[in-house]
């Protein structure tokens, strides 16, 4: 099968998945109890008129979809309404315009809040993942190369420990240690009311704020990468073609570089892609501990405050991240392994 057709099919699948997520995401938040007028703003002094005004502002006065006035509690309605006057199609229409609704809590467009937050998360996760991948793979390769030696056992022990540490606990310990002994900032992205007058000072300030959360993130993910890299590489090194390579007179380094690594990269690519997608959400713990103004923190706040539009928007972003990461992994896979292309 030719490459462009494979590409087209994969992209079509990704789009189909996205569509499914969009629909699910809409109904998920309609079956959950409460709207801002009833649950979000619990003030008994609120007049009926004011409640109604709030419902109109958030578009909750419209039927959810044809035949259903609301889904929780289930209230049947007229099936004759204009579909474009229902919440579902208004939601889809707004989505196409890039509008994710208005936050119940912050009263600002969700898209704007999330956009700013997303970049903070990407910055933190990007730095953490890159470090974890490089260090984890390096350690894994070293351990597999020196299998069953002291180096191997040490790396194995360290990685298992790192992998099993609870993220929030590690974060708190590092926060405690870093802020007292090293004088690092305890949270946030930049020093509040900071005196940074130029770009360089601001970058340094940002860097100092990033050290602890990035370190936590790296330690938590490094172990997994190391363990997977080590075990796949050991599997690959026992293959017949490795013996062939050795018989051809290649050095151990050449065998690793030219024959083993590309084969061992396949499971790694899957793992990295999955992690990248999920950790947009998975940084919740780290962002909470370090008060990092990222997507994870936003989700945490939104859950606490039952800010449904905010959660809905964040879920959509996460879904897009997971789908995109998987698509990239799929495409990378067929580059790395010629046998995959046919599938």
């Amino acid at each position: 099968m030719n490459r462009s057709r494979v590409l087209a099919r994969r992209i079509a699948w990704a789009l189909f998945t996205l569509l499914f997520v969009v629909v699910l995401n809409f109904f998920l938040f309609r079956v959950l109890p409460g709207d801002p007028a009833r649950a979000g703003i619990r003030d008994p002094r609120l007049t009926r008129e004011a409640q109604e005004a709030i419902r109109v502002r958030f578009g909750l006065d419209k039927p959810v979809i044809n035949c259903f006035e609301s889904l929780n509690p289930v209230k049947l309605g007229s099936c004759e309404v204009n579909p474009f006057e229902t919440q579902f199609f208004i939601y889809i229409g707004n989505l196409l315009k890039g509008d994710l609704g208005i936050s119940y809590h912050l009263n600002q467009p969700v898209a704007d809040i999330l956009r700013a937050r997303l970049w903070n998360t990407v910055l933190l996760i990007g730095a953490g993942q890159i470090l974890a991948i490089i260090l984890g793979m390096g350690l894994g390769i070293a351990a597999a190369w020196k299998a069953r030696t002291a180096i191997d056992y040490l790396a194995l022990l360290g990685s298992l420990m790192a992998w099993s540490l609870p993220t929030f606990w590690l974060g708190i310990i590092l926060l405690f240690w870093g802020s007292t002994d090293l004088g690092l900032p305890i949270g946030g992205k930049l020093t509040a009311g900071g005196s940074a007058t130029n770009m360089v000072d601001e970058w340094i300030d940002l860097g100092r704020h990033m050290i602890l959360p990035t370190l936590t993130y790296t330690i938590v993910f490094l172990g997994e990468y190391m363990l997977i890299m080590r075990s796949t590489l050991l599997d690959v090194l026992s293959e017949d073609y490795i013996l062939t390579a050795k018989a051809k007179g290649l050095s151990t380094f050449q065998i690793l570089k030219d024959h083993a690594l590309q084969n061992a990269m396949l499971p790694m690519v899957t793992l990295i892609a999955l992690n990248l997608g999920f950790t947009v959400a998975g940084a919740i713990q780290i962002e909470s501990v370090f008060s990092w103004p990222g997507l994870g923190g936003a989700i945490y706040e939104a859950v606490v405050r039952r800010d449904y539009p905010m959660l809905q928007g964040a879920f959509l972003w996460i879904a897009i991240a997971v789908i995109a990461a998987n698509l990239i992994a799929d495409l990378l896979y067929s580059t790395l392994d010629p046998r995959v292309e046919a599938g």
Partner: protein
Amino acid sequence: MINDTNIPSTLMEVNHLSIDYVTPGRPPAHAVEDVTLTLREGEVLGLVGESGCGKTTLMLSLMRLLPAAGRIVGGEVNFMGTDLLNLSETDIADVRWKRISMIFQGAMNALNPVRTVGDQISEAITQHIPMNDKTALDNRVGELLDLVGIAPHRKVEYPHQYSGGMRQRAMIAMALACTPQVVIADEPTTALDVMIQAQILELLQTLQQKLGLAIILVTHDLGLVAEMCDSVLVMYGGVTAEYSDVDTIFNEPKHPYTQELLKAFPDLSNPRETLASIPGYPPRLDALPPGCRFAPRCPAVFDRCHVEQPDIHAVTPTHYTSCHLVENS
């Protein structure tokens, strides 16, 4: 082995080679013990024996490719005047493939699945022969593929696009890449169907004659040995049972194991004869019998066999066997 006035010179001499597999906390398994053989230029040596009798271990040790647990505990491998066992890691890497190359059992997995066949063959060449000219290298790869009957333009394909027989051909092409003196073929046709087996063997035979290669052919197939080989080494439980030229082995076998092995092979001149089988199993290498390793299964066994391991005796200057019967006669 060949009584010719024009005796070809000796390429490789293996003297009293012994190999153990060591597992921590357990006694070592003596996989190969005291094997001696000679390989001359252009000679085809057949290595015969049951599964697990140390054939592959012996072959891997000739190129120092034993797995981590394998230890060469004695003997020497004299190749063109140097003992391969004393070479440094860098020097043995130079001998590998350039002087001695190998065709492996598993045609399916012996090629790297994520690199093209041509790429893997050129790698074998450039590892040993500096070649800066890309076109010359490409031509050489094409030439090698052509030699084994694969269209040169298929060098850009991956192993999974080849059939099993083609992969083994590609493997043979790769084995010839640096024009080695010795090719070790470790059951080169095991994983292939009968038609393809015949093709591959014919190809090997043609190439052997054309290029004057010395081949060590590891096989279970006595018919193949009769057809292709000049001399035969029969192994049993890690030791030499019998070693001689092919006519002597087939016509005057002295070791009871060789005799039984031949009886277990169909005879075209007497097709009605029932095939014999040797009762019992080959010995476990970590629990060898105290005397002759074949004694528990030997039809001609007597008391001495159970207590004393037989030495290798020369029946004639070119016929060796390790059996007490030979010593007695």
